[in-house]
């Protein structure tokens, strides 16, 4: 009985060290100290997972002694969170959803920041014979006709919204019910991984694709103006939600379109890939 009591004592001590001690120290750590101002930014996986935001935000945080809390989800979820007043500013890429968001009175000061483009990816053996096309809708039509697998984000993200537009441009109806159509409900990264494993076609923004060097997928169609991918920043309407950090959010929007930041966007991983993953729109073109 005595020895047994001792062992319990040991267990308690280990549990205490592992659990209680760090827990007690927790409130002292930085994340609980709300002294500095903070801004909640909901954004798409493409801007965050590629590393772009980590590349451009630090100067803002230093200059304004503010912390930008980035929540990277699909465009649909990013706007949904913001529409509940749970974010201060959004950076997304689905113009139709954005306009609806503004029209519903949820957002103000929608500002164009940068663009890149979508590309259609597929396995290198290209069973749908869609490669080399510059007509995106034609590529989608051939994929549908061939019955080759297509991996969709399926998450109301900007990419998913664009994909649905392309199916309708291609005149393909009710893709969701086709057995070759895989609605994954995942982020861009997860969708690329899945498409890669299954040898499926998919639609992605060029930036996320370039950042993933290990993929076996190749670009089958690109350059269609309908595959254009603009990113806008929108402030959550402070008249609707009083807790919105409107002043700081306004500063953040100006920061994103400032020449310095725009240059940083243009330079982001350009040496690595030989081209910009995201193209700024407020930068004077060099003649």
């Amino acid at each position, binding site marked *: *009985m005595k020895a047994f009591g001792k062992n319990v004592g040991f267990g308690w001590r280990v549990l205490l060290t592992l659990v209680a001690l760090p827990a007690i120290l927790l409130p002292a750590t930085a994340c609980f100290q709300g002294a500095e101002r903070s801004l909640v930014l909901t954004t798409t996986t493409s801007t965050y997972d590629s590393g772009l935001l980590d590349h451009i935000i630090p100067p803002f945080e230093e200059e304004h002694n503010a912390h930008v809390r980035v929540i990277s989800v699909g465009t649909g979820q990013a706007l949904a969170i913001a529409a509940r007043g749970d974010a201060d500013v959004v950076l997304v890429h689905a113009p139709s959803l954005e306009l609806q968001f503004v029209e519903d009175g949820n957002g103000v000061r929608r500002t164009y920041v940068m663009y890149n483009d979508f590309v259609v990816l597929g396995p290198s053996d290209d069973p749908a014979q869609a490669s080399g096309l510059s007509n995106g809708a034609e590529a989608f039509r051939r994929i549908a006709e061939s019955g080759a697998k297509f991996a969709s984000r399926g998450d109301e993200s900007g990419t998913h919204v664009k994909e649905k537009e392309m199916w309708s441009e291609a005149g393909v109806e009710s893709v969701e019910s086709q057995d070759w159509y895989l609605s994954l409900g995942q982020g861009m990264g997860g969708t690329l991984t899945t498409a890669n494993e299954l040898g499926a076609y998919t639609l992605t923004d060029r930036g996320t694709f370039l950042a993933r060097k290990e993929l076996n997928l190749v670009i089958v169609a690109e350059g269609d103006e309908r595959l254009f991918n603009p990113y806008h920043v929108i402030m959550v309407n402070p008249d609707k939600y009083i807790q919105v950090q409107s002043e700081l959010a306004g500063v953040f929007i100006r920061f994103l379109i400032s020449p310095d930041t725009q240059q940083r966007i243009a330079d982001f991983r350009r040496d690595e890939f030989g081209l910009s993953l995201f193209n700024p729109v407020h930068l004077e073109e060099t003649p």
Partner: protein
Amino acid sequence: MEEIASGIWQALKLIGSLDPEVRRIALFSLQVSGLALLLAAGVAIPYGIWLAFSRFPGRRVLIGLTYSGMAFPTVVVGLIVFLLLSQQGPFGILGWLFTPWAIIVAQFIIAFPVIASLTMSAILAINPGMRLQLRSLGATRTQATLALLGEARVSMVIALAAAFGRVVTEVGAVIIVGGNIAGNTRVLTTAIVLETRKGEFAAAIALGLILLLISFTINIIATRLQGRALAR
């Protein structure tokens, strides 16, 4: 296979070099889950004891509900906590959504039924005659209760270990209510999700190994204690 091997090798290098970000995330996971566990234990253990000892109409229903709480899908807990803490929800005024507090609330709710049920069943499992025996030997009501609790304490440590293992490995709820914000609400599990999504498998494996280490350690302690208790 090569990918896994090189991933593990790079992961070990990351851990070996004590990468500050990896270390910070691991420590933060322990802190958040530890605090959630302490708070949950503070309420769930007394509740479990009360449920075991008390006699009142509806007690069976309450016991049933407490047990079923262990089967409550954690991702639904996440959804409910999100809606409650959202600016549109009843507790939006607290401003806890997408902060560590939101994670603690979700993990508290997940840990509570585990600790309460295991505490209760530990006490109920002790020979029901024991309390009566102690009373007849002249122990007061309080003394008899304390003696029973003494008997059940190993099981309570095991209950805490089980609950900790559950919350520290939780993903769905934590990513919904915490938002996986770098340096703020990113814990081991959500960091693994992010690194996998980014295709950074070495970093994901490194974080995964640390998480395994934590949950194994907790489990080994629990199993050892259980072994001693049974061998008694």
